[in-house]
């Protein structure tokens, strides 16, 4: 189809109609049901309708997409105005009146037919189904249509023609609205339907200054009780957008309404403004009113209104309980039995609309939806968007999983993704006591790009954001594990893969101990516990990995807490050389920060880790280094690592680690993540103590020693530092690779476990019988 250019009014009108027809919100309308009704309502001969459908391409496609639908509507307008149906006429015909559709709604029909006195300018007769666009047009032009509309409304309402606009009506304060309700019960649905809105608004619209006056009287008829309270104005706005196709008019109305409202009462304005362009949009005045009402019930705007209080409040509106129940269902978005501010406004808005005669929608209109974090799809399209609905995450805590699937899913998805990516969230920078150290680590890391997604630890994506800020030691451990020895927080930050932002965070944090914001270790993994155990596990897991000579080293990865000593800057690098070869290489290169931490002791065992990063090491490290060397020598294997760890570690850690590591040995893959995390944690904890553990440092030192010993002294020149940085980076990459491999293995194992559990569950019911 050729391109279609629509005027703004047409655009809105078509949008409404499309939404009306798109009952399943699939953005395409099958050529049945409402579409056919619509076309029948257009009162065109069948062959014309067929021709239209053919022209717009629906027959070719089998359904009406949005563009086809619009084209069809335009062609209907063309046909209704008597012009020949041609594709070219789509864009060439100017000032085409909006297509007119006779109402299809039953009740509306009756009403409308009455109204449909075939006034020429009474397009409004469209019975509620389709807000008389023409009316609108007319309205725009001159409010004549209002008359037509008015008539309609008057039939139903028999109200005095109090200007709908409500400005005239002295909209009493909102509570009056409830009064109105009595009027509405019957009329609401019937009349209002939509024809009203357009014309209704028209009077208000400033666009038609003249009409407003004339329309007012007419409108008054519409609006249910002339005295109506502000709510009355709602009456005309058709509750459903589909009905309210009267956009153009409504738009204007809204503006006028607003102005009027100001004259009369904010309430009124609010109501009226809720019109058309988005029939359900809440105007500012309305919203303000709602907020005030909310405050009377619940002074805290961020709090909830309990269901019972809301029930009392809305019962005052004298709507039938069934309708109130439906309104509640629509507006209580998170299904928690309480109303947040947004939900309350939506509910109030719906009540007002209902009192004004608008039918309640089946689904909550987009503009009334509270903005939830993960909510989507509110798009409906034409809605101009929510009126000030801020996301209401607060209201929608993922408490009700069923109701808020989207919300709930986000979290699991996050976790899922994190796990899948095997990338740990940026591990919070270690909380090394020495910021300098951290910074150094960061430097080193930057190059390697966090290969070490400490995997299991880092995997906690969801936690990351919040936890990054947390400077808990746990975090570090998580990060540490990854870094294996990257004592510096940098390693943690290595989750770059997963969360780039987190990574950045980590980096920045590295310098600061409080930065441990690194993503908290994945929840499942028991972090806080045993630093040792985790490291041990790590060792074990790594030992499982082929060739990792440094199984122990692997284990460490997390442990390498930032060196307690400021000098440490060397990254944990050592840790975790994923491949034995790599390890070795890394160890040599990776700046082993071997902070006093016990983990380092383990690392030191990894000759490979001979961390170059040791450069940071301080003198004491050197000393311990020698000791460590001795220690580590014997412990090349994972077990040795453990031993070393035990030595190096704090006693408390050791026991924990040992058992865990032992356990881990059996399941190489599964546990790895856990151990890592624990290690990290422990590492973190250890870090502060690391300083005391000369052994560790010794180990580390030993490891480092294997590498071209870089003068730990801080005073090393830049070259040494850079060299160690390079080494650390290499180690980083190796460890990262190892990490990813382990993650993959972990995932596989978890999948198996899940399948087994499922099988178990399936078998379980039989046990009951």
């Amino acid at each position, binding site marked *: 189809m050729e391109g279609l250019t629509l005027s703004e009014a047409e655009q809105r009108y078509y949008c409404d109609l499309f939404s009306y027809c798109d009952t399943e919100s699939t953005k395409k309308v099958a050529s049945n049901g409402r579409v056919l009704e619509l076309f029948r309502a257009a009162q065109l001969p069948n062959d014309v309708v067929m021709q239209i459908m053919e022209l717009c391409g629906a027959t070719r496609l089998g359904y009406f997409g949005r563009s086809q639908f619009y084209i069809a509507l335009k062609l209907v307008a063309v046909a209704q105005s008597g012009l020949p149906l041609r594709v070219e006429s789509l864009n060439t015909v100017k000032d085409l009146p909006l297509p007119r559709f006779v109402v299809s709604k039953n009740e509306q029909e009756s009403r409308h037919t009455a109204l449909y006195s075939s006034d020429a300018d009474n397009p409004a007769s469209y019975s509620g189904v389709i807000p008389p666009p023409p009316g609108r047009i007319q309205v725009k032009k001159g409010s004549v249509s209002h008359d037509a509309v008015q008539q309609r409304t008057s039939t139903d309402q028999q109200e005095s023609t109090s200007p709908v606009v409500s400005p005239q009506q002295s909209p009493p304060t909102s509570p009056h609205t409830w009064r109105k309700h009595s009027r509405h019960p019957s009329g609401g649905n019937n009349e209002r339907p939509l024809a009203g809105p357009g014309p209704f608004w028209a009077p208000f619209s400033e666009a038609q200054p003249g009409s407003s006056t004339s329309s007012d009287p007419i409108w008054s008829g519409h609006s249910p009780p002339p005295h109506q309270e502000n709510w009355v104005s709602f009456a005309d706005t058709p509750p459903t957008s589909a009905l309210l196709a009267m956009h153009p008019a409504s738009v204007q109305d809204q503006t006028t309404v607003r102005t009027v409202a100001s004259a009369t009462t904010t309430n009124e304005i609010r109501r009226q403004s809720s019109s058309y362009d988005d029939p359900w949009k809440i105007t500012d005045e309305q919203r303000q009113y709602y907020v005030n009402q909310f405050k009377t019930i619940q002074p805290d705007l961020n709090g909830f209104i309990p*269901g*019972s209080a*809301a*029930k009392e409040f*809305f019962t005052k509106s004298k709507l039938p*309980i*069934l309708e*109130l*129940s*439906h309104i*509640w*269902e*629509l507006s*209580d978005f998170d*299904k*928690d*039995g309480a109303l947040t501010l947004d939900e309350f406004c939506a509910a109030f808005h719906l009540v007002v609309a209902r009192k004004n005669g608008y039918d309640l929608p*089946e689904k909550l209109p987009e503009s009334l939806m509270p903005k939830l974090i993960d909510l989507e799809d509110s798009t409906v399209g034409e809605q101009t968007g929510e009126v000030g609905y801020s996301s209401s995450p607060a209201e929608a805590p993922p408490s*009700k999983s*069923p*109701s808020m699937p989207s919300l709930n899913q986000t979290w699991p998805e996050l976790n899922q993704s994190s796990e899948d990516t095997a990338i740990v969230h940026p591990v919070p920078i270690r909380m090394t006591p020495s910021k300098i150290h951290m910074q150094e680590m960061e430097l080193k890391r930057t190059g390697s790009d966090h290969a070490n997604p400490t995997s299991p630890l880092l995997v906690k994506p969801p936690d990351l954001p919040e936890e990054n800020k947390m400077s808990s030691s746990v975090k570090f451990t998580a990060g540490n594990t990854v870094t294996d020895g990257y004592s510096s927080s940098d390693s943690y930050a290595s989750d770059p893969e997963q969360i780039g932002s987190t990574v950045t965070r980590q980096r920045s944090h590295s310098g600061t101990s409080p930065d441990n914001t690194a993503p908290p270790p994945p929840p499942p993994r028991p972090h806080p516990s045993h630093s040792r155990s985790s490291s041990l596990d790590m060792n074990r897991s790594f030992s499982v990995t082929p060739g990792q000579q440094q199984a122990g080293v692997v284990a460490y990865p997390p442990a390498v807490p930032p060196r307690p000593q400021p000098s440490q800057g060397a990254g944990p690098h050592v840790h975790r050389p994923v491949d034995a070869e790599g390890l070795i290489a890394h160890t040599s290169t990776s700046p082993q920060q071997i902070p006093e931490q016990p983990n380092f002791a383990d690392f030191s065992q990894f000759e490979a880790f001979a961390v170059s990063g040791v450069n940071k090491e301080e003198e004491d490290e050197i000393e311990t280094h020698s000791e460590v060397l001795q220690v580590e020598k014997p412990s090349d294997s994972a077990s040795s690592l453990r031993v070393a760890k035990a030595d190096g570690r704090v006693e408390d850690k050791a026991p924990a680690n040992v058992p865990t590591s032992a356990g881990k040995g059996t399941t190489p893959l599964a546990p790895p993540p856990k151990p890592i995390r624990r290690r990290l944690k422990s590492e973190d904890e250890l870090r502060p103590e690391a300083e005391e553990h000369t052994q560790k440092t010794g180990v580390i030192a030993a490891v480092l020693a294997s590498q071209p010993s870089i003068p730990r002294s801080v005073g090393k020149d830049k070259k040494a530092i850079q060299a160690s940085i390079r080494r650390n980076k290499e180690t980083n990459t190796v460890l990262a690779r190892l990490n990813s491999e382990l993650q993959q293995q972990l995932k596989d194992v978890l999948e198996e476990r899940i399948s087994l559990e499922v099988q178990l*569950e399936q078998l*379980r*019911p039989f046990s*009951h*019988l």
Partner: protein
Amino acid sequence: VLVSIISSPPQNYPLYIRSVPTENELKFHYTVHTSLDVVDEKISAMGKALVDQRELYLGLLYPTEDYKVYGYVTNSKVKFVMVVDSSNTALRDNEIRSMFRKLHNSYTDIMCNPFYNPGDRIHSRAFDNMVNSMMMQVC
């Protein structure tokens, strides 16, 4: 296929009954009524508190030549009964479970509505839509 929600004992009256092929509806009503006995039997057999989700699902209550009846009971002894065609062999147990779960979730949503008094008939449109869509999937 038919879905019904029976209130808690001792009243045991239906809070909601909806069937998709509307013919023979009365027969389904009767089936549901008779299946209540089976449900009670299963509940008493279980004995312990039905806290476990799995226990809430009673499974196939009894099959007849034309249809199968599945039961589900909530912690508050509100029973959900579903009658499906036997010819619908594609319907697996897991699907029935998920359907009951959805029903249960929607039922709790209704409960959260302050305007709903427990023990009333269920007139919620949202609930109707959910049930309809669910039944459409089955048929």
